[in-house]
């Protein structure tokens, strides 16, 4: 919960969004690989985490990413009907629909969570999606949950310090008497 976990400044000093991207092994991660070997240039804002399937994306991962300072979470899976495990991407699609609503109710804007179907042949789409998401998050600004947590807890920290001071004083009085 410290400030260094929020988004780092870009080389020019301006804030730049941090995106945590969960890509499935069989389609989207392979597409990201393709984008790499094709030497496509795109925004450096996504930190990619490879999972075997988009169906493996536990909603806890998404909430934890936001809680630890992500400004956006991108999930990439195989197109419907193409899942290596037949049904995994449908599970993700269903979770995504309710997770979107839950995040909205918790004050996290809709563009911060995105689900995209990107096949192994669609390196161009990886580039387009990451560029587009980065641009949208830039206009939205930082989410900054770690900073918010610290702000919320300052009221508790202050009282704890006051109590500790009092206790030290009392202890001194007791020793003196």
């Amino acid at each position: 919960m410290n400030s260094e976990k929020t988004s780092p400044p870009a080389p020019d000093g301006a804030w730049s969004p941090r995106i945590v991207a969960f890509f499935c092994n069989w389609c989207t991660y392979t597409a990201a690989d393709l984008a790499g070997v094709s030497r496509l240039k795109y925004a450096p804002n996504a930190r990619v985490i490879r999972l075997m399937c988009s169906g493996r994306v536990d909603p806890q991962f998404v909430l934890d990413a936001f809680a630890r300072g992500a400004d956006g979470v991108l999930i990439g899976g195989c197109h419907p009907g193409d899942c290596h495990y037949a049904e995994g991407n449908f599970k993700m699609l269903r979770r995504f629909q309710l997770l979107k609503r839950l995040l909205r109710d918790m004050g996290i804007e809709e563009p911060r969570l995105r689900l995209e179907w990107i096949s192994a042949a669609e390196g161009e789409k990886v580039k387009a999606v990451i560029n587009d998401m980065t641009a949208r998050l830039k206009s939205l600004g930082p989410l900054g949950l770690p900073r918010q947590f610290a702000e919320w807890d300052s009221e508790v920290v202050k009282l704890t310090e006051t109590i500790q001071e009092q206790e030290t004083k009392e202890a001194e009085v007791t020793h003196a008497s």
Partner: protein
Amino acid sequence: MPAKPKVAFYWCASCGGCEEAVVDLAEDILGVVEVLDIAFWPVAMDFKKADVKALPDQALVATLLNGAIRTSEQEEMAHLLRRKSQYLIAYGACAHLGGIPSLANQFSREQLLRYVYEETPTIANEAKTRPLPSSQSNGNRVTLPEFREVVRALDQVVEVDYYVPGCPPTPKLTKAAVVALLEGKLPPKGSVLAPDIALCDQCPRKATKPVDVSFTEFKRPHLTALDPEKCLLAQGVVCMGPATRGGCEAVCPAANMPCTGCFGPTSRVRDQGAKILSSLCANVAAKDEAGIVKVLDGIPDPVGTFYRYGLAKSLLRRKADVAAAEKMPAS
């Protein structure tokens, strides 16, 4: 005869149900009083804060503290009791996870105060008077505790040794916790004093849970005639059982009501709401977006349903943009 070990009971932001749970020990409470000396219990006995302050540090074997932490006074009492107790035990869902009071973390302090003191339909307060932490009355300074921005679980304020879960904890778990304390047979620090397995394992309806639950709609329990024997998930009702720790002996499913999650998650789960969302959604039958959305519309309030007892301890803790929400009415 050596002096009996001293214990304390205290309440913070709670409804009184946890105090009732202690009384629910019925005749067994006599056995408790026989071996323990209750040194502080504001709801039942006349001791004052000064009596607790006068105790040497760690003079209490244990304090069972219930209720969430909402005011500065509750924080001060939590610190004081922490200092005076060898074991501080978060007793009940509110102290353990934030409980129902922590659903207020969906609103800002300003929204809550404005609604309660100005906008509630039954209130007459034309001068818009609100309680102040400090005010003058007939030449005297009158003080009140600070109302905090955020509702917290006990361990978000002071270190906690053990947790007794439930809204409220059952007499059986309470007794087991007291016995474990007295005999010194305690699990590792930080443990929840209840079985570490999902409620489904204890549910009398377990045998009727289909291998593949498949939701074509979600039904609201108050609008549905429920089969008293069949798995509630198989009947299309949101039951928190799969994402909730057992130990209550499935009292709600036994009374033909779905589990609402008051025991919190097992030790392997960090966020109970995310986990039940994951489980319920994965088992929706529809495969197309419109069909999926239609089924999930049967869960109108995911935050209130999935985090009913634990918003304070969820990964997100509180609505993120409370400042922006301030302009909107709390109702």
